[in-house]
């Protein structure tokens, strides 16, 4: 009974198009799981369903024993699921610290929200430290570079103290250095969090992934550790085919 996230028979239909056709997925407590698959495989849709952004046609999503079906987005967050988006969204007019403070604050009762923030809470300080944006703490988030925004988003995610983190393509559009830095960040976070990462980048996958689930045309194709998945001929055909030589 250590499954944190249990997805069963999940189907999603957009105006007749089946984006997900019966997906089963189990994520154990403490796991670092990579979700891969070619474009249109349904990776982001899967995250959207878990976080309440998309309503499934059928199937169930259970989180720590709670059925998530029909819950609104913020309620799901309050249960302990946090996510990032492919295109990072941070609040540009607020400072880095204010962004983090906001993320850390949803458990505060309303009356305390009416008070001004004094100083930096431990949670925020820790998140700031983890993402390494301490120097920019009091700068508006609008001045951050693309990579820094992604880190701020990850920091906001940590500050939320979720039990499950869903990262949607965290290294898309990043430079090589930024990727390395993000990889280290990911390893660090995964030490004491359960994390699901949707990723396109194969090299990143090989370096940092252990458990991988491959989605293809709305269904789970293969599941297992990196080596097994890479060796699987079906995976090579639909996804790794292009990089076969490289993989071998």
């Amino acid at each position: 009974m250590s499954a944190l996230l249990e997805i069963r028979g999940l189907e999603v239909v957009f105006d007749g198009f089946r984006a997900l056709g019966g997906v089963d997925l189990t994520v154990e407590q403490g796991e670092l799981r990579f979700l891969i698959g070619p474009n249109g495989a349904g990776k982001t849709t899967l995250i959207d369903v878990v976080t309440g952004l998309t309503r499934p046609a059928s199937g169930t999503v259970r989180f720590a024993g709670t059925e998530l079906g029909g819950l609104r987005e913020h309620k799901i967050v309050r249960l302990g699921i946090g996510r990032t988006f492919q295109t990072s969204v941070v609040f540009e007019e607020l400072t880095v610290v204010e962004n983090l403070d906001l993320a850390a604050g949803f458990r505060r009762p309303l009356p305390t929200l009416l008070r001004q923030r004094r100083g930096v809470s431990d949670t925020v300080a820790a998140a700031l430290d983890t993402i390494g944006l301490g120097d920019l703490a009091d700068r508006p988030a609008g001045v951050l570079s693309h990579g820094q925004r992604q880190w701020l988003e990850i920091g906001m995610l940590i500050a939320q103290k979720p039990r499950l983190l869903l990262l949607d393509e965290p290294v898309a559009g990043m430079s090589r250095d930024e990727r390395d830095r993000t990889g280290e960040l990911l390893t660090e976070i995964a030490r004491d969090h359960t994390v699901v990462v949707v990723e396109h980048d194969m090299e990143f996958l090989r370096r940092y992934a252990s458990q991988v689930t491959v989605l293809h045309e709305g269904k789970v194709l293969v599941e297992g550790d990196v080596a097994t998945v890479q060796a699987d001929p079906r995976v090579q055909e639909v996804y790794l085919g292009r990089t076969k030589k490289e993989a071998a």
Partner: protein
Amino acid sequence: MESLLNQLPVGLSIGAVLLLIALGLTFTFGQMGVINMAHGEFIMAGAYTAYMLQDWFHGQAVIVALPVAFVVAGTLGWILERAAIRHFYGRPLDTLLLTWGVSLVLQQAARDLFGAPNVQVTAPSWLSGRVELLGGNLPYARLFIMGLATACVVGIWAYMNRSRQGRRMRAVMQNRELAAVSGVATGRVDQLTFFIGSGLAGVAGVALTLIGPVGPSLGTYYIVDAFLVVVAGGLGQLRGAVIAALALGMLNSYGEFWTDASLAKVIVFVVIVGFLQVRPQGLFVLRSRALT
């Protein structure tokens, strides 16, 4: 029971007027997301066009005015789009306030040009009779407006679905960037969309001269209801606008019948807020995956 049936044509004809006004908005607001508060003043411009043409065409001015008002109001709209609105795309609320400034100026200009008192446009004599319908009396003028609204709907539908220009217009509405990279000159499409939308306001203005006097603030009486039609119908949806306009017309008519005119407006408002509980994006929506 008989008087209940009486209200039906009344509701239909209010609905037809609302529809005529809202049709223009489905272009400017629906297709382009521009809240043009000066739309009401384009209606007024159309109505005064009919008034001006009386000097030459007397009783037939209304008929001549239909195409002329379309061009006059359309040109006003085109100028507005070129001069101001195109700098405001993506800022719908600012556009709203900007065009309200324009509407103030246009109203005052009408007051200076035509005088503050209302004027009358003489309807063609062949529109002066009445017809017995469902036990009630329906003036020919109202019937004419219903016919005009129907003709406009059919025309717009054909244009949007059958012509190249119309398809381009829909493409730009659904995905501006994609349309642009696919070789559609979005700027030109915007100009045309605005011209047609504003022109339809002019047509509506001519129709309004058949049922009441013309004054500088003519447009303000109808503009709020017309926007409600678009909100309830769903953005950019022709069939939504048709259904919503007729429903609102009926609601107004029966609301006035059962309570009184002042409560009817409140009822309409409550019903629309209630309706948004079931269909927050109006009757018909284009479904998409994108976040916001």
